[in-house]
């Protein structure tokens, strides 16, 4: 009988709290309080019924309480990040528009990018209102589904010999991986080993595209996620040992795969060009060398100086992919380094704010997912910039939100939406029970807790 009175009271409070997700944790705290108060009254000698009524009365008017709690618990969007996302998206479209007239099919590309932008915005809002905790609850399922999608994409569209369609599902892997790490936490060295093993699947798939850039992105983000997880003690292992094991096993596996490739001599020669395109400026190192050439003719503000020796070819033919892979290089040549600086500043501010909010995350799942997403974003940016400076010769994935490419745009916007969802609701996320990060391991036979030695005879291993 008394329980129903308490439930009635809680229900009245609940109805004042508009944000559904906040209701459960808040009401639990209130329920515990009423119970504590009731026990106190019972100890003072009141009977259960009176104690319950008095305890409820002590709480106060449920509507007032509920209303105050409602005010304290509103979902808060992070406006700076939303604004910056919109800014980057808009910037990307403006740049596409400016570059359009100069490249083949420019106008059509711009039109298509606008359509993709619309779809991307929808994807972002879908992710924004999604409950990101499913990444924690169904981590293995999500991971497997993503593997299946990636494998299917490997048989899709081929561009210049690579299955480019598989790049985009792979971009989502760090985030899915974060969920897997979350589910493996507290499982010690075994859990850690399983995570390393899990990572090998997307890594292998990226090599089947083949895309060194994606492989690199996956490796770095996976190392970041695991290092943070081990570093914060979420695996319950000896940190220096675990970190060493992790990095060494990854290095071994990657080198082993590399050296067992059929034509690894050829790959070695290509890798040399990757890191120094100027070794072969007219053939395999062409793009990187040309990028460096354009940049060396660029000014701080204003168009770059004409390039001698290439006849009448426009820069857009000399260095193709102006709207996709080499957007920054062309912008610098046409408008000056100032544009580059501006874009780098905007992107950096976005990244720094996102990292700040990642650090403020209180839940393990929230931290892992947001770190995974921001890593994906940062690595894409860094790789793109380095390639556009002509220092590396790889095919960049994208400059998130800015470079041309519908699927990249949708994927990146989806990830950003997911990250914003974490920032908005992360405070309410409870890491599932059964995780005892810092609490004594309750399954041990003998425990020392707070000055007492407790011998647990209820342990199932003792009959």
């Amino acid at each position, binding site marked *: 009988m008394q329980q129903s009175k308490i439930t009635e009271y809680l229900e009245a409070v609940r109805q004042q709290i508009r944000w559904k997700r906040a209701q459960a944790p808040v009401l639990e705290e209130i329920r*515990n309080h009423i119970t504590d108060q009731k026990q106190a009254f019972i100890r003072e000698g009141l009977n259960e019924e009176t104690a319950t009524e008095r305890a409820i009365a002590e709480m*106060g008017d449920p509507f007032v309480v509920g209303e105050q709690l409602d005010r304290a618990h509103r979902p808060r969007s992070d406006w700076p990040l939303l604004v910056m996302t919109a800014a980057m998206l808009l910037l990307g479209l403006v740049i596409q528009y400016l570059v359009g007239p100069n490249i083949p099919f420019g106008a059509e590309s711009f039109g298509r990018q606008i359509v993709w932008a619309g779809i991307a915005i929808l994807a972002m809002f879908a992710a924004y209102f999604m409950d990101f905790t499913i990444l924690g609850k169904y981590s293995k399922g999500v991971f497997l589904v993503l593997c299946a999608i990636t494998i299917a994409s490997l048989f899709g569209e081929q561009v210049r010999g690579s299955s480019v369609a598989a790049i985009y599902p792979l971009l989502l892997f760090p985030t899915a991986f974060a969920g897997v790490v979350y589910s493996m936490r507290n499982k010690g060295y075994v859990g850690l080993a399983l995570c390393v093993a899990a990572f090998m699947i997307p890594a292998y798939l990226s090599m089947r595209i083949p895309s060194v850039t994606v492989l690199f992105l996956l490796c770095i983000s996976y190392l970041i996620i695991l290092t943070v997880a081990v570093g914060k003690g979420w695996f319950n292992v000896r940190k220096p040992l675990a970190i060493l094991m992790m990095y060494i096993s990854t290095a071994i596996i990657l080198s082993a795969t590399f050296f067992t490739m059929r034509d690894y001599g050829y790959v070695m020669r290509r890798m040399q060009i990757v890191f120094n395109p100027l070794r072969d400026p007219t053939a395999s190192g062409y793009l990187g060398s040309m990028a460096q050439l354009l940049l060396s003719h660029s000014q701080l503000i204003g168009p770059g100086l004409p390039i001698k020796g290439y006849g009448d070819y426009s820069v857009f033919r000399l260095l193709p992919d102006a709207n996709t892979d080499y957007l920054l290089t062309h912008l610098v040549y046409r408008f000056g380094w100032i544009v580059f600086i501006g874009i780098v500043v905007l992107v950096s501010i976005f990244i720094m704010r996102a990292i700040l909010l990642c650090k403020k995350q209180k839940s393990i799942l929230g931290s892992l997912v947001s770190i995974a997403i921001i890593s994906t974003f940062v690595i894409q940016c860094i790789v793109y910039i380095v390639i556009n400076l002509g220092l590396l010769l790889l095919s960049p994935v994208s400059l998130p939100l800015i470079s041309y490419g519908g699927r990249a745009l949708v994927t990146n916007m989806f990830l950003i939406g997911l990250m914003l969802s974490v920032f908005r609701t992360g405070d309410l996320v409870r890491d599932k029970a059964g995780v005892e990060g810092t609490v004594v391991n309750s399954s041990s036979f003998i425990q020392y807790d707070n000055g007492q030695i407790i011998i647990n005879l209820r342990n199932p291993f003792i009959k």
Partner: protein
Amino acid sequence: MAIDKSLLTGSTTMLVLKLLDGTDMYGYQMIEGLSKQSNNVFRLKAGTLYPLLHTLEQKDMLISYEETADNARVRKYYRITKKGRKHLHEKKEEWKTYTAAVNDLLGGAGFATV
């Protein structure tokens, strides 16, 4: 005697922070603690306390964590942060200034200014 509510609300934050400055507590403990230490002058209503705690946590003045009690109940404990301590210090200074001024105005032999 019962204190006028308007006198209470302004300083409730300060009192809660002061309680937590000593040790981590959960909601019910705070109400009991406050009542005992003030000789039952401050009888804070739970319905006022929890919204306050949640707001302070959102302002990063407190952090909360959960601990399982012996009877398998999970309790939410609150701990003061550096920002919280700073705020407490500011409010304490504010309070001292305020009370000194009021006492001066109310007068009496002990408060005469030279």
